[in-house]
């Protein structure tokens, strides 16, 4: 398709001045009475057309070059980003799955997290944790554990 377009452009650049010159030469009337163009003039016109065509071609080539550069730049950035992401992901996956490193991170992070908890955790929340820190007896087959006080009097008849 671009070849066809280029051919059309060349045909237009050469054919149009030629047709113009032929029309100018053969039309009747006042124009016809004008002096006939010489071959030197024809060559001049053709060369001018060629110059215009070359200028147009150069302009198009320039535009294409700028467009191509910007596209190449964009493509290069995409490829580079993809490569970096892939490499980093592989490295992170490899190292984070490393148990030794994981243990090291946990060991290093634990005091930091505890320090943050100690400093930042609201006292109410810490106090609330105590409520869950004392396990209940299993619900089935429960028997009284070691006593710390006497049995409530009148327990068996429902009185307090």
């Amino acid at each position, binding site marked *: 398709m671009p070849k066809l377009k280029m051919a059309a452009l060349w045909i237009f650049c050469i054919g149009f001045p030629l047709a113009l010159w032929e029309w100018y030469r053969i039309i009747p009337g006042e124009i016809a009475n004008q002096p006939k163009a010489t071959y030197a003039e024809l060559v001049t016109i053709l060369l001018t057309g060629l110059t215009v065509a070359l200028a147009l071609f150069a302009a198009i080539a320039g535009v294409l070059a700028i467009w191509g550069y910007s596209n190449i730049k964009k493509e290069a950035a995409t490829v580079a980003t993809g490569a970096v992401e892939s490499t980093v992901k592989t490295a992170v996956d490899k190292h984070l799955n490393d148990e030794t490193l994981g243990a090291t991170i946990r060991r290093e992070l634990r005091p930091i997290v505890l320090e943050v908890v100690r400093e930042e955790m609201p*006292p109410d929340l810490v*106090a609330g*944790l*105590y409520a*869950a820190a004392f396990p209940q007896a299993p619900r089935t087959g*429960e028997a009284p554990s070691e006593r710390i006080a006497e049995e409530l009097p009148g327990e068996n008849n429902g009185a307090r």
Partner: protein
Amino acid sequence: MGLDKQVQDFIRRLQDKAPVDITGIAKVLGLKVWESSQLPPEIAGKLFRDRGSPLGQQQYNIVVRAQDPVVRKRFTVAHEIAHFLLHSGLFATELVDDALYRSGLSSPVEAQANAFAADLLMPWHLLMSVIDKSPSELASLFQVSEQAMKIRLESGRIPTAVG
């Protein structure tokens, strides 16, 4: 809802060795501690004021669930002592704490009771002298759960009335 300095000092004198004699502290404060086998699992314990005799004074009582492990019963007693000392104006005659030590009072009030109970059972002045032991050993020494001891050690000091 702060605690009088004299009461703080008085309690501190009672916390003279580990494990803290929590029922002894309750007794000294004028509270009777009872165990009940009929409390359902959903109830950890309760604090109530009895009717009293026509001539006598009304008496505060603490009831804990007999089936609960000793460490839990001790914490329940400490929690009810906290309500008795700090929140007696917030309930009429009875305060029942569920399994998670919620009694219908506001969360900050319950949190204060929990923190106070932790201070009663694991006072820092006793802990500091044996702080080099493991949490498990400390839990056994203070007769609290290991988890509670870890929270105590890791969360640092929570400022309350005692401890």
